[in-house]
C-alpha cells in the first residue's frame, strides 16, 4: 500500500488521475496550488507526491522546497528541458508526462516510493545531451559529478531508445537492481552537478 497526494491545479485532471491510479495506491488528499499543497503536507505525510510543474502561485519546485519530507514525482504536460531539469534539481525523484497511462503513472509512483528514480526517454535524451555524452565525454571515476560513466551512458541511451528498465537489464546482461542503481546515480548527478549547461538552466529559472 502506497500513500499519495496529488498536486495539480486542474480539478478535471486530478479526478481523472485519481480514477486511473491502481487500487494499491491510496490518495490521501489533493491540492491545487503551492499554498494549499504546503498546508496539506503539514497535516498528512504521504510516501509520494504527484506534483504538477506549473502551479498558479508558483512552481513545483516551491512545493518541494517548502515540504522536503516526502518523495516527489513530477507530472507535467510540458516536457521542455527547463521544466524537467528545474523540478529534478529541486529534488523530484522522477518525471513523467501527463500523456502517460494510469498504469504507467502507478508504476512510476511505486518506483519512486521504493527509492528509485523514474526517467522518461526524453529526460534520458536530455541527460545524454547535457552531460556531454553525445560529444564523447566520459567520467574517469564514479565520483565525478559532471560526466556520466560508460555504463551510465549505455543505460541512458537504452532508456532514450524506449527500453523499460527490465529490457535494459536483459539487453546489458545485468540485473534490474543494477539498472536502478545506475539510474539513481544519474539522478544524483543531475541534482548535484555543477556542469555549465545545468547551472545555466538552473540560473535562468532562479533555482540556485
Amino acid at each position, binding site marked *: 500500500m502506497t500513500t499519495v497526494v496529488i498536486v495539480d491545479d486542474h480539478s478535471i485532471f486530478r479526478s*481523472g488521475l485519481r480514477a486511473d491510479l491502481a487500487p494499491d495506491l491510496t490518495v490521501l488528499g489533493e491540492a491545487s496550488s503551492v499554498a494549499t499543497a504546503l498546508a496539506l503536507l503539514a497535516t498528512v505525510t504521504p510516501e509520494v507526491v504527484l506534483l504538477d510543474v506549473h502551479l498558479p502561485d508558483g512552481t513545483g519546485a516551491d512545493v518541494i522546497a517548502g515540504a522536503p519530507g516526502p518523495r516527489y514525482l513530477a507530472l507535467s504536460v*510540458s516536457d521542455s528541458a527547463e521544466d524537467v531539469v528545474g523540478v529534478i534539481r529541486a529534488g523530484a525523484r522522477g518525471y513523467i508526462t*501527463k500523456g502517460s*497511462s494510469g498504469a504507467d503513472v502507478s508504476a512510476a509512483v511505486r518506483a519512486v516510493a521504493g527509492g528509485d528514480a523514474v526517467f522518461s526517454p526524453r529526460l534520458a535524451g*536530455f541527460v545524454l545531451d547535457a552531460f556531454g555524452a553525445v560529444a564523447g565525454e566520459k567520467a574517469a571515476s564514479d565520483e565525478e559529478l559532471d560526466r556520466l560513466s560508460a555504463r551510465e551512458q549505455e543505460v541512458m541511451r537504452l532508456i532514450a531508445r524506449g527500453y523499460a528498465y527490465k529490457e535494459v537489464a536483459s539487453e546489458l546482461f545485468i540485473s534490474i537492481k543494477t539498472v536502478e542503481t545506475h539510474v539513481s546515480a544519474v539522478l544524483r548527478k543531475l541534482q548535484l552537478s555543477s556542469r555549465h549547461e545545468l547551472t545555466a538552466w538552473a540560473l535562468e529559472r532562479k533555482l540556485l
Partner: protein
Amino acid sequence: MTTAIERPTLLRSRVAVVGGVSDGLALHLGWQPRTVRLLFVALSFASGAGALLYLWLWALVPLQPSEDDVPVRRSAPVALIAIVTAAVSTLVVLAIAGEDSVLGWLVIVAGTASVAVIWELAFDRTDPDRSLRYRLGVRFGAVGLLVVAGITALLSRPSALAAIVSVGMIVIAVAVVVAPFVVQLWADLMTQRAARVRELQRAEIAAHLHDSVLQTLALIQNRAGASSEVARIARAQERELRDWLFTGDAPLGTDLAASLRDIAAAIELDYPVRIELVVAGASVAAPGPLVAAAREAMLNAARHAGGTVSVYLETSAGAVDVFVRDRGPGIDLSSLPADRLGIRESIIGRMTRAGGTGTVRKTATGTEVHLHLEVPA
C-alpha cells in the same frame, strides 16, 4: 453627366526621385510622370506655389504599403546637392568674411548643411542604394563646412548677430556628430520595446493555452486509449499546438530533428500509433537517404506494430544514429520472401548506398531498426 473612371488610389511611390509624389500623382491621374514634374516646377515660379504644393502632398499622401517593408529608394541625391550648396556658400563666406553681407551666407551654409544631415538621417539611412561611405561623407562634410564657415566668421570680428549665428553653427556641427547615435539608439529602443511587448503577449497566450487546452488534450488521450480515433485527433491537435507554442515563428528549415518530427506527425495522423521522438545532440542538416529510411522504418512500425513507437535521434561529432523501436510481434529478416522489398531495399539498401548502415534487430519485446550514417563534422 460624368462617367466615373476607376482611378488607382493616390499613394506615394516607393521608388521615388525625391518624395514619390509625382509618380503617385501621375498614376492616380493617368498622366505622364514627366508632365506632373514639369507642372510642379512651373508652378514653383509662381511664388513657390509648386514647391509648397509638393511638400503639402508629401506630408499628407500616404506611402504605398508594402508586404515586408520594402525600403523606399530615392534616386535624387538630395543630401549631396545640399552639401555642394553648403560648400559653395562656405567658399563665399571665406571670400567675404568681415563684411556685413556674410550673415546671409552663413545662414545658407547652416541651413543647407542641416538639410543634408537631416535627409541623411531620415531617408538615406534606410535606403539600400546609399552606401555607408556616401552617408558618412555627407555627415562629416556637413560638420567640416559648419565648423570652417563658423570659425572663419568668428575670427573676422563680425557683427553681434553674425557671431551668434557662427556659434550656433558650431553647436549644430557638434549636434550632427552626436545625432546619428541618438537616432540609432532611439530606433533600437523602439524596436526592442515592440519585440518585448510581442514576446510578453505571446508568453501570456502560451501560458494560458498550456494550462488549459494542453491539459485537456492530455486527459482526452489518456481516457480514450492510445489507439482510438479520438486520441489520435487529440494528439495531432496537441502536436500542432505545441509546435506553435514552443517553436514559435522559427523557420523549420531542413534540420534532421524537425524532419523526423514532421514525419512522425504525418504518420500519427494516418495510423493509430503514438510516436515518441527523443533528440540528443546538436542540430544537423537532414541527409536525404537517412530521412527516407527513417520514414520507412517508422511507417513499418506504425503499420505492423502500432501502440507506442520510440524514435531516438543522436547526433554526435561525425555521425548520426537513428533508432526506431516498436513493440510489435516482430519480423524475422531471414524468413522474409525475397520479393518483399520493403525493409531490405528501402531501409538497408538505401543506407548502404548512402555509405551508412541499416540494421534490423528483433528483441524479446519488439523490433528495433538502427540507422547509422557518418557525416563530415
